[in-house]
């Protein structure tokens, strides 16, 4: 009887840890989404230095988060693509600056919005799963 109770308690403790980790993952990606929002703002006002810094910081934090939080991330959201696109944005801005052609500038802005949207999506999806598990 005591053994069964101990097993149940261990399972409950593991579940509690998992819930905490999931909530932390949702919060972490919410913060990353806020950083991506700063990137969007920097690109909109054509501040090259701030945009490059924001993109580089996001690459750094996303790479850490993607391995650290791998088991809590929802399926279907590709962080690889976001990291690759951020690297391209950073490299392009550092080597050529903001594009002159309106079409290219729109593409760059669209890409930054897309990265922000992806990170919001990950945070929201993990948050939903946490709430679903709690009920």
């Amino acid at each position, binding site marked *: 009887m005591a053994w069964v109770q101990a097993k149940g308690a261990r399972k409950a403790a593991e579940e509690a840890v998992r819930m905490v980790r999931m909530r932390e993952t949702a919060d972490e990606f919410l913060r990353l989404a806020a950083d991506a929002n700063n990137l969007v703002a920097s690109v909109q006002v054509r501040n090259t230095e701030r945009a490059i810094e924001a993109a580089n910081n996001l690459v750094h934090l996303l790479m850490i988060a993607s391995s650290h939080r791998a088991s809590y991330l929802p399926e279907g959201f*590709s962080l*690889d*693509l976001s990291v*690759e*696109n951020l690297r*391209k*944005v950073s490299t*392009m801005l550092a080597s050529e600056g903001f*594009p002159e052609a309106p079409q*290219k500038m729109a*593409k*760059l802005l669209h*890409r930054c919005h*897309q990265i922000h949207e992806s990170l919001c999506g990950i945070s929201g999806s993990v948050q939903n799963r946490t709430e679903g598990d709690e009920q």
Partner: protein
Amino acid sequence: MNSSIEIIDSLKLVDKLIDRTRDGKVSWEASEILQMAFTPTDISGATSFSTTLEGNLRAEISLNSRNKEDSLAFSLVEFVPGGTTLLTSMTSKPDKEILSVSVDKDPSFGFDTQAERELSKALVDLYSLARRSALKIEGSVQKALTYLDKLAV
């Protein structure tokens, strides 16, 4: 702009074409119009290649450069048997494009989707294989290797 259905269908086709070309079961040639511009023995500058599949289907792949950015186009075409020349295509029924996709080889700000990135990578491989097949590069490399092996003896 490619639809996700076109990308998925193209990926399936391109993957199989890569395998069959690697096996040597599918061979490519420089596209017809290009063959008119280049002599049959000099097609090294060709950037468009095609292969005829069963019946009246033809797969085409081409590399296009515009504004310093390269893009790859892939299409599956249903053609009128017997061949079309520039002259007959003006009067008879034109080729029917069944499937057509175009992706940037290395877009400045990255790809829109994971599938588009996969398609681009697959098209780069297929273009390279199609070019090697049309230019018969494999045979030349083998010839050079055999010659070098002979020198070593």
